């Protein structure tokens, strides 16, 4: 019954049934539609029915084709569309396995050439299928590169993303030591962003004294460990001795410049000239500012 073609003819039911019965054709779903008569026959009898009702007066038409005929007609008229849809489906399915680009991201992106070479060896190539990509192997081989401390491999659409981090990124670790001075003198300025300042501006300090402690005090006065962040400037005194053949303006300027080499932030300086064997001794005394920092990089 699935392969039934519905015909429509202009004829009386009695005449149509008589002709079809005579031809030994099974008739299905015979109905009257005003002056027209519709009936179904098996699709193999299409030509026979047209032959029986060949006269123009019958005005024979196929009102509905069988499902097989409709499918055949559908496929034949939409051949290009079906081919296109098939190609699209194949492309959509295969795109999941295709790598169009390998992207190296993270601080280790400067190693891109070497990482891409490693990826190629592990089965991932740009503009190619990479069904055989061995991600753990790729990861371990990238990790084996010098200075690489982290690597992750993941697919994002047609992209293969390799995230690489190098050790430089992790070397800037916090120093949990307090800020200490290595010169004696007077605190010129002190700024504690984190931690506790143990000295104030104007305090006298000796070499090794703690300037900013790596702790914070809560309301109850209890100390909680933390990283010290800040800087301090110490005003220190120093003197240098230099020997010249004689005292003159040129040698004086040279002696003062020598002191400037010691520090570029000299706040006060003075000199004395003492005669000695074979010339003079310049003794330059100066005050300079030395800066100490902790975790300020």
């Amino acid at each position: 019954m699935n392969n039934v073609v519905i015909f429509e003819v202009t004829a009386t039911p009695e005449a149509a049934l008589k002709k079809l019965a005579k031809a030994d054709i099974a008739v299905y779903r015979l109905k009257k539609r005003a002056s027209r008569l519709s009936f179904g026959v098996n699709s193999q009898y299409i030509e026979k029915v047209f032959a029986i009702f060949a006269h123009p007066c019958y005005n024979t038409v196929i009102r509905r084709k069988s499902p097989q005929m409709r499918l055949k007609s559908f496929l034949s008229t939409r051949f290009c569309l079906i081919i296109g849809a098939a190609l699209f489906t194949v492309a959509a399915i295969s795109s999941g396995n295709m790598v169009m680009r390998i992207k190296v991201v993270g601080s280790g992106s400067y190693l891109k050439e070497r990482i891409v070479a490693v990826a190629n060896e592990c089965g991932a190539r740009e503009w190619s299928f990479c069904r055989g990509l061995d991600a753990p192997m790729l990861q371990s081989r990238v990790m084996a590169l010098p200075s690489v401390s982290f690597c992750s491999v993941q697919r994002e659409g047609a992209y293969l993303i390799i995230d690489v981090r190098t050790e430089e990124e992790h070397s800037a670790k916090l120093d949990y030591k307090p800020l200490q001075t290595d010169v004696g003198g007077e605190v010129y300025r002190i700024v504690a962003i984190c931690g506790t300042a143990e000295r104030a501006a104007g305090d006298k300090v000796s070499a090794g004294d703690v300037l900013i402690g790596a702790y914070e005090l809560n309301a109850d006065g209890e100390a909680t460990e933390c990283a010290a962040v800040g800087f301090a400037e110490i005003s220190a005194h120093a003197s240098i001795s230099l020997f010249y053949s004689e005292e003159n303006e040129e040698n004086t300027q040279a002696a003062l410049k020598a002191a400037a080499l010691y520090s570029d932030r000299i706040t006060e300086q003075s000199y004395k000239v003492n005669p000695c064997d074979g010339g003079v001794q310049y003794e330059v005394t100066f005050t300079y500012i030395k800066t100490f920092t902790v975790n300020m990089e």
Partner: protein
Amino acid sequence: MNLIQQILREAGADLDRSFTIVPAFGGYFKSVKRVEDYSPQRIVLTVAKMRLTVTGEKLIIDKYFQQDLLVRGSITGVTVE
């Protein structure tokens, strides 16, 4: 059709000249020599030497092949002449 035939056979009916009516469904007629007349309200059949007039509503000839005829629709009456 085979089931109907089996039922009729076991009921002792004359299978060559018989018809079966199922209310609100239709009817099955055997040995139909000719369809004399057809309209959605009336079908006239020649069965052997008898003339059957089937009346009802929305009648359609669902199948007619080798003297077997299946009528679908609401049959309200059959007259034998």
